[in-house]
């Protein structure tokens, strides 16, 4: 068996050859094969993407004060399970191109870990971020969350976490330094999904909405259904948003489908399984727990309001989308 493995770490290309290849390395044929491989690799878009990702890794220092880079991380697709098991599903549910990073250790210092999740698009990096925030904060990138023991942010198609086992003055400094360094290494900004701009701003809880493509996240704010009741998929953009104060909170679900027909089908499914008594003449109904609910489909978008405390609250929220 012969094999050749190419890895690019910190701008250096490592070519691993097994013994059989090595024995023939100096033959003209082998040289030609290797040259052909590199020409092919450099023309391949996936390698280009990978090389860009590695460029970001290049910005990570080998050393920061008493910290030294000890373990370089590089995972693609389901290999991420080896690193964070089920936690990988969060990233995979949004479309993950790969994760790179580094662990930093120093004598007597708590470990610091950098993880750079490269998503397939900026909107997916933004989506992961919306899952990962409790408040509005913009200290790093296009949105961040800073605590004593971790910093996370998103920028362009990257979602970045920098964590430490224990918050100490040294580890906190390292977190801030690395966050700034990585932020600067990402030159571009990513577009926020267009659907977000359709959210009414009045009454919206600060930082209180999720953007997603997987039905699992439908229950993030309140239990709606334990199955895919509105046909959410990679082809849809969905937002779940919180409105009103905690004691009078209602929830807006807004889903954009690839076609008007898909939206109509999903709307009919939700109506049949959730609120069959809805009619054009009676578009807002009161449920058994006294809360108000509406569901409407317009063009390729489905809009539903859950948990309204008054009929007017639901109507106002709906109307503010289509005003």
């Amino acid at each position, binding site marked *: 068996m012969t094999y050749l493995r190419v890895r690019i770490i910190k701008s250096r290309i490592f070519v691993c050859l097994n013994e059989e290849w090595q024995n023939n390395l100096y033959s003209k044929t082998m040289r030609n094969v290797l040259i052909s491989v590199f020409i092919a690799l450099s023309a391949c878009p996936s390698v280009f993407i990978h090389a860009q990702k590695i460029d970001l890794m290049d910005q990570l220092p080998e050393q920061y004060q008493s910290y030294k880079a000890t373990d370089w991380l590089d995972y693609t697709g389901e290999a991420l399970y080896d690193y964070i098991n089920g*936690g990988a*599903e969060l990233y995979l549910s949004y479309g993950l191109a790969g994760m790179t990073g580094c662990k930093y250790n120093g004598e007597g210092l708590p470990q610091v870990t950098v993880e750079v999740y490269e998503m397939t698009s900026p909107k997916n990096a933004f989506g992961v971020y919306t*899952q990962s925030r409790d408040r509005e904060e913009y200290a790093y990138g296009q949105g961040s969350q800073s605590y004593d023991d971790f910093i*996370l942010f998103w920028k362009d198609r990257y979602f970045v976490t920098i964590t430490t086992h224990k*918050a100490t003055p040294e580890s906190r400094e390292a977190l801030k330094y690395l966050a700034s360094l990585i932020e600067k290494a990402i030159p571009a900004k990513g577009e926020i999904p267009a659907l977000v701009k359709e959210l009414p701003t009045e009454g919206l809880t600060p930082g209180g909405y999720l953007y997603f493509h997987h039905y699992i*996240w439908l229950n993030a704010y*309140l*239990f709606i259904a334990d199955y895919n009741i509105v046909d959410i998929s990679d082809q849809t953009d969905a937002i779940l948003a919180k409105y009103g104060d905690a004691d009078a909170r209602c929830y807006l679900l807004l889903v954009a489908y690839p076609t008007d027909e898909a939206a109509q089908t999903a709307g009919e499914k939700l109506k049949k399984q*959730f609120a069959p008594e809805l009619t054009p003449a009676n578009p807002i109904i009161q449920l058994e727990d006294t809360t108000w609910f509406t569901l409407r489909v317009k063009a390729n978008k489905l809009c539903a309001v859950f948990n309204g405390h008054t009929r007017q609250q639901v109507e106002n929220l709906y109307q503010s989308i289509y005003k």
Partner: protein
Amino acid sequence: MEAISRRELLKRAAVLAVGTPLLLNRPVTAWANEKEAASKVVLIRNQQLFAGGDTPDPVICEQMLDEALCTLTGKKEAAEAWASIIQPSDIVGIKTNAWKSLPTPPELNEILKARVLSAGVKEDNVSIDDRGVKTNPVFQKSTALINIRPMRTHAWSGVGTLLKNYITFAEKLSDYHDDSCAPLATLHQLPMVKGKTRLYVLVLFTPQFHHLAASTFSEEFTWKYNGLLIGFDPVAIDSVGLRIIEAKRREYFKEDRPLNPPAKHIALADTRYHLGTSDPSKIELVKLGWDTDTYV
């Protein structure tokens, strides 16, 4: 188990005249099966557990484990209680959890090992392991398992539970990830696991009730609950642990903040896989020790 929506739960709640907020926060209880006998779960807490610093006092840990097991087994003496679950001829795997940010406290691992040895098991026949269990010779030939792990929120399964702690026995981890880890109870059917577990210990010394992203950890989202939940029914124990986490979230956020995603694998362990009971009304919860802010 049938698919269920919020509306279906509301209709059932109206028929049953059950408080809907309770029901909707815990759909796990809405369709639990009837069980012949209640599952006994012991919650023990000690206010002084961390009085000496950041690490739990090993003497108090020992007392907590012994007292809880005596209550669980109905034995008066600790030695008698341990002897009732572990035989000298047993080969015992202590399935711990080594997640870097919130591992099973090493003090508890060592106490369990000491108790297994004092029950007459040979030193070579006891091992503590997490990610290496599949290739660990003791686990490979084990006759008994003890499942111990801390409770924490989780980005895909809602919470990290005793049910989830056996995932390192799986050949392919992702086989158990579908539908937010719905099939985790089936790990108990794996040959290395099936019928072997003698004791479950869910550690709530400093449980994690919230997280951001998948691998971040902050002490901000933990608190000193100083508790252990032990029993023979992992579903019942996880169910009680879940109620504690949910209650803490309500207190911290000052509003209902459901786990995202919901921890449905606990309910399904009951209703679909019949591994135990998740219905609080069918769990006999015995509470010992410190009783402030118990949440259950």
